[in-house]
């Protein structure tokens, strides 16, 4: 098992139901391919560093999970297909997670796995919008 982190940005004006649907889909991929979710963070709507498909804002989500490479491929394929997702990026955190460490992570994970993080301010307000 490897540990990955996928960060993705969705259209900011989507409703909560749309987001729930998307997250549910990602969760089902994770369970069907025997991945383990460590945490899922919702950073809320943030200003983007540059415009993506004419959006200057986007809602950020961070998924931290244990998986095999084929799961990442499947997950990214789905993110690519979804027009709600503006951008995504997967980073490998560790190459080898021992079964014991994986168990510990699984137990430490919150039941719903959803943590809302709002204090993480990325692009400060004083920064002017990059006109691209």
């Amino acid at each position, binding site marked *: 098992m490897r540990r990955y982190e996928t*960060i993705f*940005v969705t259209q900011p004006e989507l409703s909560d139901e749309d987001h729930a649907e998307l997250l549910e889909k990602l969760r089902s991929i994770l369970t069907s391919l025997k991945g383990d979710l460590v945490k899922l963070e919702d950073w809320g709507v*943030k200003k*983007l*560093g*540059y415009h*993506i498909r004419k959006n200057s804002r*986007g809602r950020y989500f*961070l998924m931290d999970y244990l998986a095999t490479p084929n799961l990442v491929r499947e997950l990214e394929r789905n993110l690519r297909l979804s027009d709600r997702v*503006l*951008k*995504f*990026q997967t*980073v490998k955190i560790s190459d080898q997670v021992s079964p014991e460490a994986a168990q510990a992570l699984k137990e430490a994970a919150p039941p719903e796995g959803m943590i809302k993080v709002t204090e*993480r*301010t*990325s*692009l*400060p307000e004083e*920064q*002017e919008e*990059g*006109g*691209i």
Partner: protein
Amino acid sequence: MPKPQFKKKRPFQRRKVCVFCADSSMKIDYKDVKTMRHFITERGKILPRRISGNCARHQRVLTTEIKRARNIALMPFSIASS
């Protein structure tokens, strides 16, 4: 016969110390835009090592992390001049 030495006109500069070496608790992470923001110019370019004083190892890590942040739009590639 020793030749007269010409003084260079460069002003003396204190040798800068890599902030990440000085404080080992500091981690470079693409999600942490706050710390990385000190290492870019107003235009959004990555500051060179000779300016920031970072060591080679940390500069290398920092560069990849900034590029990751740019890729996911946490940081801009360029900021338009006003």
